[in-house]
């Protein structure tokens, strides 16, 4: 029972919100990239840049929270470390993508969209691990 309680507390609600927020933001960036690449309408490239920046803020705060969480001994286990590794990868790919998105007009393509796909998948994976393994809750 004690172990179960630890699992429940392992993902604070605010931490969960920050983490979950990365998916719509990064997915929004990816969809905007797709819209730009299929219409050449510059508004979508601008949307993508801001959604990406927003996703980096959410992912960055979630990562900070997760790293601080390492202070707790019960967090130093494989699931949690995989989660952190995925989040680090998400943030690094996202940051590189932000630099690519700072190129003018079509200069951001096709690299920008490829990185958006990778970044979004990584964010989904990190969130999946965190939600399924760390905050399983209710299995008792």
């Amino acid at each position: 029972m004690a172990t179960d309680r630890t699992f429940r507390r392992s993902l604070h609600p605010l931490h969960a919100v920050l983490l979950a927020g990365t998916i719509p933001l990064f997915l929004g960036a990816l969809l905007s990239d797709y819209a730009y690449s299929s219409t050449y309408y510059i508004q979508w490239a601008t949307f993508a840049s801001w959604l990406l920046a927003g996703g980096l803020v959410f992912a960055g705060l979630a990562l900070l929270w997760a790293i601080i969480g390492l202070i707790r001994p019960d967090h130093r286990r494989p699931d949690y470390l995989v989660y952190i590794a995925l989040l680090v990868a998400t943030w690094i790919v996202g940051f590189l993508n932000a630099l690519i998105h700072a190129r003018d007009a079509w200069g951001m393509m096709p690299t920008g969209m490829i990185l958006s796909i990778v970044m979004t998948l990584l964010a989904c994976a990190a969130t999946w691990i965190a939600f399924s393994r760390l905050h399983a809750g209710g299995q008792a």
Partner: protein
Amino acid sequence: MRLTSVVPVSVLSALLSACGDGSPASQQEYGPNPQLPEPKRGLLPNMTVPERAEWGDRKPTVPDDYTITAIATDLKIPRQTLLLPNGDILVAEGTGGSAPLSKPKDVIAGVIKSKGTTSVESGNRLTLLRDSDGDGSYEEQTVFAENLNAPYGLALVEDNLYVANQDALVRFDYTEGQTRASGPPEEITKLPSEINHHWTKAMTASADGRYLYVGIGSNSNITERGMAAEVDRAVIWQINRRTGAHKPYATGLRNPTALTIQPETDQLWAVVNERDELGPNLVPDYLTTVREGAFYGWPYSYWGQNEDPRVRPQKPDKVASAIAPDYSLGAHVAALGVDFSVPEMGPGYSEGVFIGEHGSWNRSNPVGYKVVFVPFNNDQPDGEPVDFMTGFLTDDGRARGRPVGVTVDPDGAVIVADDLSNTVWRVTYDGEE
């Protein structure tokens, strides 16, 4: 790298960019047929924005037999100058542009660029400088007109003084000897001013005085605000000065920042600032004759028909119709002033044009930050640019000043506006003609 003197982003840029800290000025290509490198762009654009430094007791360096004087200081961002028939000098002061932040990049770029510009407020006025006793010191300084909107281009035709504000072409009555405008100006025509990413409206009058030519820069580096923002941009307008009726005279000129008429031929010439973020030695800024009806490539292609990969949708027929300009001044030098010389400027500088180079931000090693002379022969550029006025950069890479408008006084002097130190310089020839 001069770590102490440049903003930190240049260090980061050098680490992350594909081409590192190389590309000295000597790799720049001048003249009619520059070898163009392949376009390249690292993860960050190359940027080095020199911080401000003071002139102190120093002055720009000029050749032997020439003397330089600061004829006006503490101005409010002097840009272009106009020599009036009685020897008075009008100075257009101010700064414009109202481009809203568009992408996260603009937030960061705004902070970086503010380190390399003056903190003085836009003057939005014309200042008149007068040397009554002819001793070379312009002791009288009066405000000729104020409450203008980022005035830049100036032209005098008969008793009409035309001023190209960032949003409109206006006209003042002018009588010789006047030190203050007699009233508010009359608007001749609006000028394209939405966004005004490139806000300067360069101007000159045709040789016969019938038309005014006004340069209207693009609304982006390379279409990153969309093509809808580029209607009536990157063009030179020909304007009937009496009616205000206008038409595009030439198109595809990204940012035509100074215009002048060649006295021998009555031909219109321009200096044009080309696009950024294709590498330290691309795309060359240029000096060119402006041919009526010609298309000079922007945004679809550069230096003739070299396609820009960042433009979508591309237009192959437009690329095919693009002509190459006449003379490369080197990439990123930011030419902002041009005027034809006269024999009174001395034997080394008698035939050709003086060009004010504001100086680069978009490469690791700064270029420009000087006034050069491009020698002419048979009314065409002939030979490499020669340094005429240097010393704008300190040894540790800071900027004391940045040249803008250049005006040749037929008595044998060059007047140069400096919008960083807010000074107007005058260089006179002391030797024998």
